[in-house]
């Protein structure tokens, strides 16, 4: 995801580089194929980003499940604790 964002940010700079480059090689027309490069970088960047995004989504789904489990566990445990503490005090008062 980070790589994708970085390469997408890079494309903000690319037009300037391109202008610089094409002004130096003006008239020759040999660098026409360089026109593709920004597009390819953008595509590659978004691909990287969205692969990361998909992996993050799958991981987040698992994390949400785990959190729901933990919440339930905490609720059950606090109930248990209260019960045991109640027993403890009654034991002590009886003793």
């Amino acid at each position, binding site marked *: 995801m980070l790589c994708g964002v970085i390469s997408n940010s890079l494309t903000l700079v690319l037009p300037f580089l391109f202008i610089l480059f094409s002004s130096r090689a003006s008239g020759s027309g040999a660098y026409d*194929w360089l026109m*593709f490069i920004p*597009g*390819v970088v953008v*595509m*590659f960047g*978004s*691909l990287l980003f*969205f*692969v990361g*995004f*998909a*992996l*993050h*989504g*799958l991981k*987040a*789904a698992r*994390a*949400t499940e*785990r*959190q729901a489990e*933990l*919440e339930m*566990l*905490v609720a059950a*445990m*606090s109930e*248990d*604790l209260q019960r*045991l*503490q109640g*027993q*403890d005090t009654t*034991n*002590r008062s*009886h*003793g």
Partner: protein
Amino acid sequence: MAWMPTVLATSSLAFIIFRLLIFVAQWTGILALRRSSRGFPWILMIAGVSIGSLMVFWPFIADLLSFEMHLSWSYLPGLISTLGSMLFAVGFAIHGLRSARATERQAELELLVAAMAEDLQRLQGQGTGNRSHG
């Protein structure tokens, strides 16, 4: 340049493959996030992704409708795609902020569960100790 058409064909094939991969990854991520990031950020993200996916088919739609666009409106598809990416980015940012909080909460819960388990064991030990003493 004789090699130009070949390069163009290859690059458009690569373009389509890239778009397909991005499409699959986008929708996998969005659908996986539907439970953990529901609400406003998820709606923003899904709106952005839907606009992006629809705009992929824009050339075909325009072709099908034989839609002749006036030159002054030719920037419209680009504008709509950018708007879609912006919606997605805003949703993603909000989701990121929320998920940072959710991660903290999860760490807290793990600690709480560990502490409670210890407490329970101690109390149960005491309980059996009391009973054996009694």
